[in-house]
């Protein structure tokens, strides 16, 4: 769909985006994580064409430039306008007329659960409603690429899960989505691809599936502290980890294969097994490592 090739963008001396390359493949939901000032919004503005790269290229792959729906991070609206009117205007800018425009507006309102607020002035809407309105306007005109800058910021938990549901629906309809967020749970839930930006450059990039399958480990919890058994267990494999005065043994990576051996050692030493858990690295850990 879109290929970003070695793009750099500076604001005077500050390098906002530093030699970023990325392919946006149709149907993907790309989650962009990064601390404030990492360059997420700048990257969006480069894709929308409101900023020009200082070097590098942003080009469409194969087809014409996709129609873009953009939900900016800042919720700025013509505040005296009514919700329905605002969406109608967006529909007309997307070349929708008459019944078709009305249908698109109604669908947009329904998508974000704003039907009851359709005739309210925007200035009378709560922050959550404005967030939904911003999302609704981005969806008008059936864009093929949706850029969502912190879509669930300011929403209550129910609103956040509604947004997640909506994003999943949109993905099923084949809409490509690029989503910048600070909500790790949201990104884990909806994204198929993960990108971590820090100080303008990509520090981590992977499919979500691969990212969350990284570094598998098994933790075994026993009924009492391990004490004397600790050196014996640790001598089995360097990837076996036992915290001091702990009741938990963690088998990392290759050490997972030693699970039967460890279990039999524990049982023969008279320990009761409370819990065995197979887990993987969390997104929070990936993020923390990439950013720090």
């Amino acid at each position, binding site marked *: 769909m879109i290929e970003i090739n070695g793009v750099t963008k500076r604001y005077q001396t500050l390098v906002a985006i530093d030699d970023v390359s990325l392919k946006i493949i149709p149907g993907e939901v790309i989650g962009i994580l990064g601390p404030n000032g990492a360059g997420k919004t700048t990257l969006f503005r480069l894709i929308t064409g*409101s*900023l020009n790269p200082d070097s590098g290229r942003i080009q469409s792959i194969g087809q014409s430039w996709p129609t*873009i729906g*953009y*939900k900016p991070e800042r919720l*700025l609206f013509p505040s005296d306008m009514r919700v329905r009117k605002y969406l109608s*205007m*967006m529909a007309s800018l997307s070349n929708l007329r008459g019944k078709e425009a009305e249908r698109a507006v109604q669908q947009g309102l329904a998508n974000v659960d704003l039907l009851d607020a359709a005739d309210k002035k925007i200035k009378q809407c709560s922050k959550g409603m404005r967030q939904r309105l911003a999302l609704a306007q981005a969806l008008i*005109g059936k864009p093929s690429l949706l850029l969502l800058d912190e879509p669930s910021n300011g929403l209550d938990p129910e609103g956040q899960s509604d947004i997640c549901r909506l994003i999943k629906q949109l993905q099923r309809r084949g809409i490509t989505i690029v989503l910048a967020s600070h909500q790790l749970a949201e990104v884990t839930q909806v994204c198929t691809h993960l990108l971590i930006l820090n100080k303008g450059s990509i520090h981590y990039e992977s499919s979500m599936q691969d990212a969350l399958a990284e570094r598998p480990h098994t933790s075994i919890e026993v009924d009492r502290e391990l004490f004397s058994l600790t050196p014996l267990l640790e001598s089995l494999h360097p990837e076996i980890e036992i915290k001091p005065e702990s009741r938990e043994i963690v088998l990392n990576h290759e050490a997972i294969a030693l699970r039967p051996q460890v279990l039999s050692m524990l049982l023969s030493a008279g320990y009761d097994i409370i819990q065995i858990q197979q887990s993987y690295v969390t997104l929070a850990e990936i993020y923390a490592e990439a950013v720090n």
Partner: protein
Amino acid sequence: MLFALAFYLIFFDPRQQTPDTDYYILVLGLFGSIFAFLVTLSVAARANRAVHFPFLVRLPSRIEYLTSVMLASMAFTLGVQIVMGILAILANGPKFTVGQLAVIPPIWLAGMTLFIVLALHASDLVASGWSRVYVFGVLAILLYIQSGLGILAEGIAGLTDRLGNALLTQGWTTVANPLFSLGDWIVGAGSDLIQQFTGFIFWPFTSIASASVAGFFSVAQSFAPALLLIYATILFVLAADLFAAKDLYLTE
């Protein structure tokens, strides 16, 4: 709107008879141009707000956005100008023949369009880097040359003469003589050349004014509004280029 009202009351006081058709055409035409400039600055400032960012993203080309700013300014100015024109006719206004009425639209529209495009260059929406300084700097230089070239030329010629005399006293005749010649050229042929050039640039304005006063347009003068539109087109293309290539930092 206050500006429009004040302008109307000062120049078309309903208690007095509006003197003549040329006064009506030129004064209201001037009003339209100045008002268009102010309106465009205001519309462009509104268009430069981040509120409109989602609109901009939807447009296939930024030029559409710029054109809409231009057309909005033109429509609003034209509306006010027409209202004022009708009021000025109804309240002791001059009597027009059809021929006189026919010359009004090209004159008003050409001036208005040019000033709208100039205002676009003055606005934050379009200006990029030093572009504003370049556009209005060139305009200021042309206006200065047009109005005060004689004084400027004599000043420069005086300078070259003094420098020539100083060099002559040192015996440097080979350098002094060309300086004297340069001084003569500046006040003579050089001034004429530059004045012809600036005269050509400002010819549409002077032509429209003199034709309106005379009450008829010669064949050459009838092209003056078209030339103004050509200026406006060139400046609009420049504005469109600047706007299309600039980084948009809309104000929040």
